[in-house]
């Protein structure tokens, strides 16, 4: 059964007509112990059929461990989006609800020509002396989540030093527990710096930059203390 309604397909096809470059999407799914893999696979197959610019491939991490390891995939379902040069934007969980909107935006960013980050953010990324792992916990019903998820994915697409993971918090309860997620969006950088709620780009980058310079070397750091 199709998961994209006719009107959704029509709308997404119109969006994808705006892609000016190929976008590579690698979908990690498996049949064993992954109840949401089948829906994820269906959604991505249907998306792939809407544009020749979208190159969707499917990988089973159980049979292709080396590739999964190289891409840093340790749970499924996972979706990697890249413009062919970077593979540092990953979505974990079914891309439903508002997470679908984040995935579409990420695809349009990767296949478009427009400048999506402001100059100060690009400066911050270019000056990074350390790698950043940005995890953004989201739920499909959270309207605030796409802006946090997309900001992380845009930063990862713009810098070799950044990896972004957008994680559906309900599907990965152990990970949510580990990071004490009880509200979304929750952004966790390098397992240490965290932000509750969605911050505008300028505010997030400025707080992160200040916290990285001024925060104590150990312990969890709330970015709202560095606004």
């Amino acid at each position, binding site marked *: *059964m199709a*998961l*994209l*309604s006719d009107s*959704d397909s029509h*709308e*997404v096809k119109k*969006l994808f007509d705006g892609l000016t470059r190929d976008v590579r999407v690698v979908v990690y799914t498996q049949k064993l112990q992954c109840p949401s893999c089948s*829906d994820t696979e269906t*959604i991505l197959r249907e998306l792939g059929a809407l544009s020749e610019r979208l190159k969707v491939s499917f990988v089973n991490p159980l049979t292709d461990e080396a590739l999964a390891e190289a891409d840093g995939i340790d749970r499924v379902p996972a979706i990697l989006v890249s413009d062919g040069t970077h593979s540092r934007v990953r979505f974990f969980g*079914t*891309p*439903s*609800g*508002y997470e*679908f*909107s*984040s995935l*579409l*935006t990420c695809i*349009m960013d990767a296949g478009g020509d*427009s*400048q*999506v*980050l*402001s100059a100060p953010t690009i400066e911050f990324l270019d000056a990074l002396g350390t790698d950043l792992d940005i995890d953004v916990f989201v*739920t*499909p*019903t*959270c*309207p*605030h*989540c*796409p*802006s946090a998820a*997309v900001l992380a994915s*845009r930063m990862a697409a713009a810098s070799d030093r950044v990896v972004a993971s957008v994680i559906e*918090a*309900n599907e990965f309860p152990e990970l*949510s527990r580990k990071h*004490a*997620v*009880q*509200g*979304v969006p*929750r952004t966790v950088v390098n397992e240490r710096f965290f932000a*509750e*709620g*969605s911050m*505008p*780009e*300028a505010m997030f980058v400025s707080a992160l930059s200040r916290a990285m310079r001024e925060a104590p070397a150990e312990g969890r750091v709330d970015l709202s203390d560095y606004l």
Partner: protein
Amino acid sequence: MIELRTGLVGSGAGSAGGETDLLIAGGGPAALAAALYASRYGISHVVAESWQPGGQAALTARIENYPGIESITGGDLAAALRRHAAAWGASFEASSVVSAKPSGNRIEVVTDAASWSARTLIVATGAAPSRLGVPGEEEFYGRGVSYCATCDAPFFRGKTVMVVGGGDSAVKEALHLAGFADRLYVVHRRDRLRAEPLLVEKLLGCDRCSVYWSSTLLEIRGSDGVESVLLRTPGGEAEVPVDGVFMYVGRTPATAPFRDLIDLNPDGTVRTHDVVHTSRENVFAAGDVTDNELRQVVTAVSDGARAAAAAFELLQRDEGGKG
């Protein structure tokens, strides 16, 4: 069928700013209705729709009083309003207004993406949930304290939660949470709820729900997350074990950038006359940011339409003056 949301997250990075006949500040129903009407009037315009479009409507689990639509999620209604405006040519920028000041007969508007010189301005920036200011509220935000039941309800499946407030939003979201939580309390400072009677009836009929009447929240307690709340009740202080606290204690209008531009009321709302007119001839206001009493999606879209019509009239007067 899985629910999928197709709206894209915008970016303000490519915006060059410049001159425009109308700048609409805000991304909720009032701004979107204004954008639709402005597009159909053929007014050159830009919508500074903020970083989180959809406004408070997008955070509402279900809307059942928008005429013509029996029941819809707030997210779907907000998305439909935006799609409709975009289909008629509305022009959006993912930015928020930082400052606005008069310059001759125009308004200089600085957003966090660009600088605009606008002949007319519609302030439709809405309102954000108010903080109660009790101990523990900031400390446990994101760790059991939430202002968005639509976003966070799944984390409280099988748990005990408390909703603070007694208006429409509090009761609507309490009913949404009751679908997840095992036990739900509402704490309200009065002896009756202000919400729509239909919603109150539903809440009082819910067997897992109970109300602390004439009670106030004094403190939120816990260690890693929320563990209990301290209430002042008619019978004295009571500590109630809960896992989560959802706050619906009113809204704070987002008017800070317009403080020196137009008259505001002591509560921060825009002082209006004739529904959408402000103290400045070329600045209009619409939706929850105003002092208009009923704050619903239906009144917000009505305000938005009126504000766009008022801007159109002023721009036409300009044209007439030129001729």
